[in-house]
């Protein structure tokens, strides 16, 4: 069972209590195997971000069980098993790009010699090698997000959690970043959980798309993406790609109707 990075059984999450209680998630069963790229997709309020936060131990489940790398999520967090990327890059303004990437390394007690070397390596990986001494405000939104990804991967976590990371980017930058993330995923063999509300993005990136529906948030369908593992602009024009997009769209519509 050790090759399961995430294993959730009957997991639910309710915020608040009494009359103000809101059930965000109900009856979540989810397995994510090592090397998977899983997208969580659904309308707003379907709990996809909450599910990501549960995996990252930023919130705790109310019922059911959840393990990350076979451990309690809290244990996995303390073991620094995952890196996280939010929709906003959340870089520290007073630190240079390189020092931002070094932040987790400082906290995780990497040696002062290893930190800059590791940070430079990560910046090269996201193709920002020439920007190490820049400050975040000197970079475009897409570049800032690449720094955030470099920072999340700097300590080589086995799991990368991404919460609508490209939601604030324009379409062109977005497609470039998708390609970038796929390349990083192959080069670092990290498992990825990716929250998005873009159907083409979910299909293009994932090995599996988890379709969620709201009120209360639950998984309505899982769709395996059987596209070739190596994906490029040709993938975006292939017939199978469009079929899968249609399949996900219909699953979303169906989930919405059942929820309403």
């Amino acid at each position, binding site marked *: 069972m050790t090759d399961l990075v995430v294993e959730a059984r009957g997991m639910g999450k309710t915020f608040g209590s009494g009359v103000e209680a809101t059930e965000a998630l109900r009856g979540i069963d989810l397995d994510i195997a090592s090397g998977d790229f899983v997208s969580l997709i659904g309308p707003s309020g379907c709990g996809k971000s909450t599910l990501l936060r549960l995996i*990252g131990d*930023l919130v705790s489940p109310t019922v059911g069980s959840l393990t990350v790398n076979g451990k309690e999520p809290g244990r996995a*967090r*303390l*073991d*620094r098993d*995952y*890196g*996280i990327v*939010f929709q*906003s890059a*959340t870089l*520290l303004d*007073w630190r*240079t790009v390189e*020092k931002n990437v070094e*932040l*987790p390394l*400082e*906290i*995780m007690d990497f040696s002062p010699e290893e930190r*800059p070397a590791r940070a430079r390596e990560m910046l090269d990986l996201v193709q920002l090698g020439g920007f*190490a*001494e820049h400050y975040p405000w000197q970079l475009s939104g897409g570049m800032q997000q690449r720094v955030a990804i470099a920072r999340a991967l700097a300590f080589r976590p086995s799991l990368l959690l991404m919460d609508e990371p490209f939601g604030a980017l324009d379409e062109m930058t977005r497609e470039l970043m998708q390609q970038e993330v796929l390349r990083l995923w192959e080069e670092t063999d990290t498992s990825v959980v990716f929250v998005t509300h873009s159907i083409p993005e979910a299909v293009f990136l994932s090995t599996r798309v988890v379709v969620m529906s709201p009120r209360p948030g639950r998984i309505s369908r899982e769709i395996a993406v059987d596209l070739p593992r190596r994906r490029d602009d040709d993938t975006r024009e292939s017939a199978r790609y469009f079929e899968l997009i249609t399949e996900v769209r219909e699953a979303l519509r169906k989930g919405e109707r059942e929820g309403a």
Partner: protein
Amino acid sequence: MGAAVNRRAARTGVSILGVILAFALLWEGYKFVWTALGWETPVSPEDRVMPHTWDILLTLFQPAQRSGPPLILVEARAALMTLREAFVGFLVGGGIGFGLGVLFVRSRTSERAFMPYVVASQTIPILAIAPMVVVWGGRLDIPQWLTISIIAAYLTFFPVAINTLRGLRSPPPTALELMRSYASSPSEVLWKLQVPAAMPYIFTALKVSAAASVIGAIVGELPAGFRGGLGRDLLQFSQQFTAAPEKLFAAVLIAGLAGMLFVGLVTLAEHRWVAASMRQTGEITRAGA
């Protein structure tokens, strides 16, 4: 780097001079127009109420007492004494304010418990507090100037505490979640995220506090009957106002300059601090190249 600081200091000096000149022009303009039109309100333009600016300046260079040193020297020395009290009060008050900000951001309970008292402390007039502190300080054999510093600290800690707290709370929730995902300790969150984020807020408060600490020191000198500071001279000259109004205005000018000097120094420190972090990364660039 040193040149930049010098340039900034020079620019600040020029702008202070400009403000004083503009104020002098307004003063003389008011006197001229009001005298010409025979107006008496709101303030009479007579020389015994509003002495000429050049008379005020001249007074500064005349002996304060018969055959003594010129007034400007006496007042400069008094200003230095007052600034010392203010500076010590500023450091103590700033330290307490920062400490309270950190305590409140760490514990909501302590914020709820103590914040009302912190706010209430500022609604009590400093004029009521000062005599008590002076009497208690005298009982405890604390040097008088240090007692006055305590009064300056009383005015200083509040803006620093409030702004430190605001600054420490300024990072977005995602930044805190990010730190949580690194399994960082509370002190790492404080020193690597919250305090650097709070620096601009803290410096804004320090500038307000620098001015307030000078006021606090002057007010503190009054009930203490402290000799050698600005407070006593201001009091004495205001009693002699009908005989020699220009003396009071001269002393007020010096007191104002003292406050501005202090605020100016804090501003320089702020720019140095920012420059320092830039310089540090500059050095790394050279080492890496």
